[in-house]
């Protein structure tokens, strides 16, 4: 019996081990290391063990401090004094039993451990510093107010100022004396509803006016920042992708002849890679949209680029949600809808009171997927706008990528990623809780 038990255990291990080993190496280990790195200032450039030491430093600070001679000998195997005799260099190739081989990860870790015991480490543990910095020093991350000055000291005085700029951005910031001075120079033109610069101002007056305008004419603008854009993108994407998906599903859920062809058409963008989708649309935005809308710049404008990203994202994703809603609609018993029809329920009433409540399970799934996918969306934004212009379309995910690979702040980037992970868990967890409760209520 015990023999049988052992063979069962053996087979269990045989079946599970391949998946578990790979999963452990390429997911669990990096994930745990990621959490560790998020508490350090690792920059990814400095190697984990120093490549070389000054001779004096190595002999005094490392070998001198090591009590254990085994450890010192171990280090001497890998750090070899070079020909000039000034520097100890790490040899990554060592000779063992007559054969050359590269030093292993295990040996690297041992060296790291020994060096750490004498206080030498390229990675510093900095506690929660990374997490604090995300909110404290990262100016791009959180939404913030920015003051935009509307007049430059060195440019000519504007020949006219609009009523909005005058009354909202200039007058409230002036003292009474300055106000009467400005109002004597800029005269209100009733017909054009504009303030016009009076002719014949003296040089001194012009100079004073220029100073006042450059210092006092400003507007506080809210910069959405990375969090603001991510929230905007997520909310718009969730609403519009679900809405369009649902509308398409309802439209296709009849016995129309073109049903399958149309379904395939609407689903097609979903099988394309996001890179192809982004580039196709970038040409649409550059070649077609200017003629269609009269606005020349879409992807280069901080106001319109976020909208463009949402348009493309909804276009790409809605087919997917349509398919899920269609599958949900097909589970609705046809006689239920017909019974409502016989009872005289209008199209809208049938939709509102019969179909939508029964679609709730599909809705739960779609909401979960849209939320998670929008928060994780990378490829599309990266290829479409690269996070620009400025950082108008930088989502958290793009920001993490930039932190890690453009600024080499690996520890900091990983801290942000851990934060994102918590956000995703919280948001989707809350959503599942709420919609599941609603499902049970019905």
């Amino acid at each position, binding site marked *: 019996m015990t023999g049988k038990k052992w063979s069962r255990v053996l*087979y*269990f291990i045989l*079946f*599970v081990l*391949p*998946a*578990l080993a*790979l*999963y452990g*190496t*390429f*997911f669990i*280990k*990096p*994930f745990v*290391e*990621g959490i560790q*790195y998020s508490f350090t200032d690792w920059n*990814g450039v400095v190697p984990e063990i120093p490549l070389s030491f000054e001779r004096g430093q190595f002999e005094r600070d490392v070998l001198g401090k090591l009590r254990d001679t085994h450890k010192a000998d171990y280090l001497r195997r890998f750090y070899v004094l070079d020909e000039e005799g000034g520097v100890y260099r790490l040899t990554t190739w060592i000779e063992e039993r007559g054969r050359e081989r590269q030093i292993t*990860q295990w040996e690297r870790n041992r060296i790291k451990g020994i060096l750490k015991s004498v206080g030498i480490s390229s990675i510093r543990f900095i506690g929660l510093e990374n997490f604090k910095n995300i909110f404290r020093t990262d100016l791009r991350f959180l939404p913030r107010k920015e003051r935009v000055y509307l007049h430059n000291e060195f440019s000519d005085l504007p020949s006219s100022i609009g009523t909005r700029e005058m009354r909202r951005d200039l007058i409230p910031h002036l003292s009474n004396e300055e106000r009467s001075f400005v109002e004597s120079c800029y005269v209100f033109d009733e017909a054009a509803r504009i303030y016009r610069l009076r002719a014949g101002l003296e040089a001194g007056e012009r100079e004073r006016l220029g100073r006042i305008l450059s210092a006092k004419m400003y507007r506080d603008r809210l910069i959405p920042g990375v969090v603001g854009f991510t929230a905007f993108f997520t909310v718009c994407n969730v609403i519009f992708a679900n809405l369009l998906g649902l509308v398409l599903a309802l*439209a*296709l859920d009849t016995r*129309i*002849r*073109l049903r399958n062809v*149309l379904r*395939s*058409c*609407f*689903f097609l963008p979903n*099988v*394309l*890679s996001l890179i*192809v*989708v982004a580039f*196709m649309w970038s*040409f*649409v935005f550059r*070649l*077609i949209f200017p003629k269609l809308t009269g606005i020349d710049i879409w992807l280069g404008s901080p106001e319109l680029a976020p909208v463009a990203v949402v348009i493309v994202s909804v*276009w790409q994703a809605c087919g*997917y949600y349509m*398919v*899920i809603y269609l*599958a949900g609609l097909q589970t609705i018993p046809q006689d239920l809808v017909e019974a409502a029809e016989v009872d*005289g329920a209008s199209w809208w009433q049938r939709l509102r009171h019969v179909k939508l409540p029964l679609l709730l399970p599909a809705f739960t*799934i779609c909401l979960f997927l849209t939320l998670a996918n929008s928060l*994780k969306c*990378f*490829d599309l934004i*990266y*290829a479409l706008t690269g996070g620009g212009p400025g950082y108008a379309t930088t989502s958290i*995910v793009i920001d*993490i990528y930039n932190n890690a*690979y453009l600024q080499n702040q690996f520890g900091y*980037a*990983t801290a942000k*990623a851990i934060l*994102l*992970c918590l956000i995703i868990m919280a948001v989707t967890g809350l959503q599942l809780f709420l919609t599941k409760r609603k499902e049970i209520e019905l």
Partner: protein
Amino acid sequence: MRGIDRWTPSGENPGRRAATKRWAAVAGQMLLAFFALIFLFPGFLTLLNSFKTNTEIKMNPLQLPTRLSITNYVEAWREMEFPVVLANTFILTSLSTLGIILVSSMAAYALVRYKWRTSWVLFLLFTFSMVVPFQAIMVPLFANAKNMGLLSVLGLVPIYVALGCPMAIFMFHGFIKSVPEEIEESAAIDGASPLRCFFQIVLPLLTPVIGTVAILDVLWIWNDFLLPLLMIPGRTLQLAQYRFVGIYRQEYHLAMASLVLTASPVVLFYLFMQRYIINGISAGAIKG
């Protein structure tokens, strides 16, 4: 149209009402078809302009091409090293998908059939990864892969298998639970080992889920961008596409031709398999 003739509550003539309804349906159909054409417009635009010259595109992007010249395609094909990257992507996708299916179906089978507490804990451990964004493991994963010398097309295969298996295990797990145990038990009594039991009895029963998992993973790996971008820059189809458009951003004709080239394998796959793909995806979403 229903067979029974009946009076509607408002007292209208039912025949007339059915007629208006049919007209409304036809109008709705036309409207929807029209919308589908607009919907696919970016695709048409790309296809249309891939045959033209750059000046023609800049003059009028909507004009039909005057001739069907494939010079743009020839140039994009050569510059992208299309056959090489296509082969790379094909090898990577097929090997990874096969690996995911084999490894996950085995693991899921053991996790269902051996009803120990360990099985449940391991199942939770696997499913946990589905909420973790890739960015959280991106940096250490790259460092590990570099240390292990996995920065090559074949080296990415185990990484894809590892990252793809949680979802696949989840789906296989759900399906295997509904497969009755009796056949396996009687096979075991006849002296079949659990390995043989799995490969000869259980695996053939899993075909529908294998199809779904295969479709989801093929589309995912084929279209994936960030992981290969970090590990093997420029060597898969999507990366070659990204680099190509980066270089020829202003040369619309070449960029459009390259987009058509990149999109064509997956579009062909879709055209032949659309029923399976759509069913597989909706099954995957509902069970995932």
